[in-house]
């Protein structure tokens, strides 16, 4: 047996088919960034009030709370699950905080209760999905009614008001100049979720599960445990969003955050996360949140009726998702 020597053939197989730069330019994030920039420019031309730091600061409230949840939801959807109960979880967290406030609790206790209730909601969903193997869409449609139902039983058509002044800091406070507390929480959450999904083993496991849960299981990934943690994270982010929203509104009603779940999922899908699981990125979600915020605020400045606004947002969502697919179809012809 002779040593097999590799003889250079003169032809090389590139380790990447597309250069990193070209790939970045063609990526979903780049497309979204272009859309965001276009909307920003269009808004500044259309309304004289758009390019005002305070106005832009106010505009961030249109998306910060939803985007916080969207990061956790993105990971959940990458793993092939979904949580439609987030809006109702906010209502429940807010109601629990309201009860504690009525009993005389101070801000630190309120925050802990908000986070705790969020985690409990997430754990409940996670238990039903991961432990009992129920489909997440069914479970969370159920808990969507359940969580809000509890709030309605507690509150009826009354409201909790009179949160302590220090509690208002989360939703109405500024860290520095026009930078709101919510915006800072949003940014910190973006960085943490970005690192977790793209730079840790846990993140790789999430992708593996989303692409093929069975293969992931045979690779030694504890699929149920990862899913349970993802539901916990979504619950936790709902809790944080509930603290911000309750603080911003200064009151709790059982109808709080109605319809948030679909807006969160819209941001996630617009951000390029495949609804079938397995692909997408956190930077995409960040840009998608900005796009949604810019669009709704810009149209609001022009006093475009909300009905027309939702048509435009729907069109944007379908357009941004359909365009790349159409483009490849045309190029293949």
């Amino acid at each position, binding site marked *: 047996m002779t040593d097999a020597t590799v003889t250079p053939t003169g032809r090389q197989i590139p380790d990447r088919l597309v250069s990193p730069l070209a790939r970045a330019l063609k990526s979903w994030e780049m497309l979204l960034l272009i859309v965001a920039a276009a909307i920003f420019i269009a808004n*500044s*031309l259309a*309304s*004289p*009030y*758009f390019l*005002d730091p*305070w*106005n832009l600061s*106010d*505009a961030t*409230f*249109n998306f910060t709370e939803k985007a916080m949840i969207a990061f956790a939801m993105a990971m959940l959807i990458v793993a092939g699950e979904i949580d439609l109960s987030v809006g109702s979880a906010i209502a429940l967290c807010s109601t629990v905080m309201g009860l504690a406030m009525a009993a005389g609790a101070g801000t630190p206790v309120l925050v802990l209760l908000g986070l705790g209730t969020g985690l409990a909601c997430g754990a409940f969903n996670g238990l039903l999905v991961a432990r009992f193997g129920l489909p997440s869409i069914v479970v969370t449609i159920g808990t969507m009614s359940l969580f809000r139902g509890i709030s309605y039983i507690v509150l009826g058509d009354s*409201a909790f*008001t009179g949160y302590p002044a220090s509690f*208002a800091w989360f*939703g*109405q406070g500024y860290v520095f100049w026009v930078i709101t507390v919510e915006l800072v929480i949003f940014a910190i959450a973006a960085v943490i979720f970005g690192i977790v999904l793209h730079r840790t083993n846990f993140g790789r496991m999430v992708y593996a599960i989303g692409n093929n849960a069975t293969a992931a299981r045979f690779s030694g990934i504890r699929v149920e445990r990862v899913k349970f943690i993802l539901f916990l994270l979504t619950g936790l982010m709902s809790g944080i969003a509930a603290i911000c*929203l309750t603080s*911003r*509104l*200064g*009151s709790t*009603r059982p*109808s*709080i*955050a*109605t*319809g948030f779940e679909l807006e969160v999922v819209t941001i996630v899908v617009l951000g390029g996360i495949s609804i079938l699981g397995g692909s997408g990125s956190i930077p995409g979600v960040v840009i998608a949140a900005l796009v949604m915020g810019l669009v*709704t*605020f810009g149209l*609001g*400045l022009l*006093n475009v*009726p*909300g*009905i027309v*606004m*939702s048509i435009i947002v729907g069109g944007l969502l379908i357009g941004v998702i359909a365009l790349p697919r159409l483009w490849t179809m045309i190029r293949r012809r």
Partner: protein
Amino acid sequence: MSILTKALTTAAMATALIAGSAQAQDDMRIALVVKALGIGFFEAANKGAQEAAAELGGVEVIYTGPTDTTAEGQIEVINSLIAQRVDAIAVSANDTDALVPTLKKAMDRGITVISWDSGVAPEGRLMQLNPSSSPLIGNMIIKLAADNLPEGGEVAVLSATTTSTNQNTWIEEMNKVAGNYPNVKVVGTVYGDDLADKSYREAQGLMQTYPDLKAIIAPTSVGIVAAAQAVTDAGKVGQVNVTGLGLPSEMAGHVKSGASKSFAIWNPIDLGYSATMIAYHLAKGDAKAEPGATISIGRMGEVTLDDNTEAAMADPFVYDASNIDAFSSIF
């Protein structure tokens, strides 16, 4: 011409354009914020607001609101109005309390904020315009019964539940002024619990208990329809008149059949008109929102603010065969 100068010229032109469009808006801009767009009642209020704007001159009304009746949606709308630096915001609130922080911010930035129809907690607005007041409503419902009974006679009340705060207050106010209508004898009050079938049976019961009954007063939109139906089914149209508070769209048929000669409810057109008038005067500075102050509301006369800086616009508006068609398509 270098690229830099080109860019600078473009930027300068853009700035000039933006500044130009900002200067063009020297009208007073009043935003009429409603609970949700696409509701007939509020579309009618907008009609009134536009009427007020035309009458005042130099006023632009921005009619806006969220797609569904959420506080969060309304806050987004109000934020964008603050950003546009409108002169005044007149809001019918989806939530008494949740709008307060945002509306406070609006007032901090120099915007006149009032609420109308569905009010905001006092710290979030300068004043609240109610469509009417309990004494006016109490008086109106018995007056409607008396006006159609020249010879007088027995009337009965069909209310909602025994614990309905609104209805109880109105009936109490009605009893206070009953002495002004000596012809009319109020013989009893029954409760239909705001359920169509129970109200219907209670109305039937009234007609059996009091064979000489001349009118049924139902100060609830459910009860008035059920009573009118019961009168029609009993073949007593013309003998028993049904009146009270109802919605024109639901009552149109009964007014035409004669089961109800007239009934009352607020007029959304007048409400939008008055809210715009008040917002205009407060923003202009020729009226103040403080307890006891009076503010002119054009063709509607004037309103006086009470200790909670709330004001009642007028008597409930009377709907009868002459105007029911015009309003039944509105709300």
